[in-house]
């Protein structure tokens, strides 16, 4: 097919866009399979292709192997978490900030626990996944620092570090999953557990 000089860039862009969209659909298919069947670390290429509505060949045209798909899905999930969970009510009072941070974090954990478990299982054999796990943790800590800056600013460097580590531990993906799965708490009840705990862990809010 011959293309005129003027129309060539638009066709290439269209192909690229369609290819990127297919990639995204494949990634979303993988993530939805994980959420449905969290006990299976890696769905097969055939299962992913069927869910996405494409051929297995299409999957491997975009991802050389399933571990590359897993890595791309991780990057996608991290970007999605950042987009869906911007910091809110940063200037609010203590209870507003705690509630806001908890509800945001709870949503992230509710969506992401299946993938998080896969990552932790696979991180020993994949250095690139390890860096993504560390990035996820780093962002969690940064968010805690932003939301609780007034309270944390009253602490010594050591106490501040200990408090952040404890906050990260109690608001971990697995902590959320245990409340929902093992203790059978509703979303709201699990949020209430976190709100209460964070309120206890934080030092008093300095007066304005």
């Amino acid at each position: 097919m011959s293309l005129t000089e003027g129309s060539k860039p638009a066709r290439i862009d269209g192909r690229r866009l369609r290819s990127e969209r297919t990639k995204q659909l494949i990634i979303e298919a993988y993530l939805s399979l994980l959420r449905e069947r969290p006990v299976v670390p890696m769905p097969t290429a055939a299962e992913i292709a069927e869910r996405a509505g494409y051929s297995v060949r299409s999957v491997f045209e975009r991802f050389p192997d399933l571990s590359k798909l897993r890595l791309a899905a991780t990057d996608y999930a991290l970007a999605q978490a950042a987009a869906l969970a911007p910091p809110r009510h940063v200037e609010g009072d203590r209870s507003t900030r705690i509630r806001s941070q908890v509800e945001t974090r709870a949503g992230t954990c509710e969506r992401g626990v299946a993938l998080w478990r896969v990552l932790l299982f696979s991180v020993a054999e994949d250095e690139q996944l390890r860096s993504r796990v560390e990035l996820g943790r780093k962002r969690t800590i940064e968010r805690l620092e932003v939301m609780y800056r007034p309270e944390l600013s009253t602490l010594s460097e050591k106490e501040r570090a200990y408090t952040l580590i404890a906050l990260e531990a109690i608001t971990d993906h697995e902590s959320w999953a245990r409340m929902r799965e093992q203790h059978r708490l509703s979303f709201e009840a699990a949020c209430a557990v976190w709100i209460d705990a964070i309120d206890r862990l934080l030092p008093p809010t300095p007066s304005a």
Partner: protein
Amino acid sequence: MVRQTDRQAEPQSAAAGAGGDGKIDGRHLRSQRTRLRIIEGYLELAAEMSPLIPTAAQIAERAGCSARSVFERFPDIHSLQVAAVDHAVALIVPSPPPREGDGREARIRAQVESRSRSCQTWLPLWRSLIANQGDSTELRARVACLRQGVMDRLSAMYEPELSTVPEAERRRVLIILEALTDTESWARMREYFGLSTEEARATWHQAIDRLLPPTPAAP
């Protein structure tokens, strides 16, 4: 070739014929010793390879027997996993109960030290268990039981404080204390945050002290 059913008959005849046929007793004893070596071999390898699980061939080599011996005693790796977890749990020495008169500080210190030692010791096997429990109801039940054991311990150590609050609040505090002192939480402090043992214990100590309700005054 001795079939599995023949081997299954052996324990009964050995038990029924105590002091009777020495050969049957000897075979039974050797079989039990091999079973134990297989379980111990699995546990060693699971800890070394965590979170990956060893193959039957690897387990057999470590145990000094054949893969056939492994499958004669365990229908599959999953049943060996279950038996190994039960064996490991049976080896756990219960932590001493809180001493009468121990104050809040002493109890927190004792519980943190005990829990941190336990986490450090069991981390590789715990990771292997968590990563490989899959949809196994037996393994999930054991994980749930172990977690409940941690909560029971927390409940016992902090009874003075927890007894002052309503049941719903008590439950919330225990859930969070268990999350805070989870084995992976310990691992993160040591591996990701790079804390020393003392710093990690201090982190838990500070957090537990803040999470617990006030200690009631002594009568």
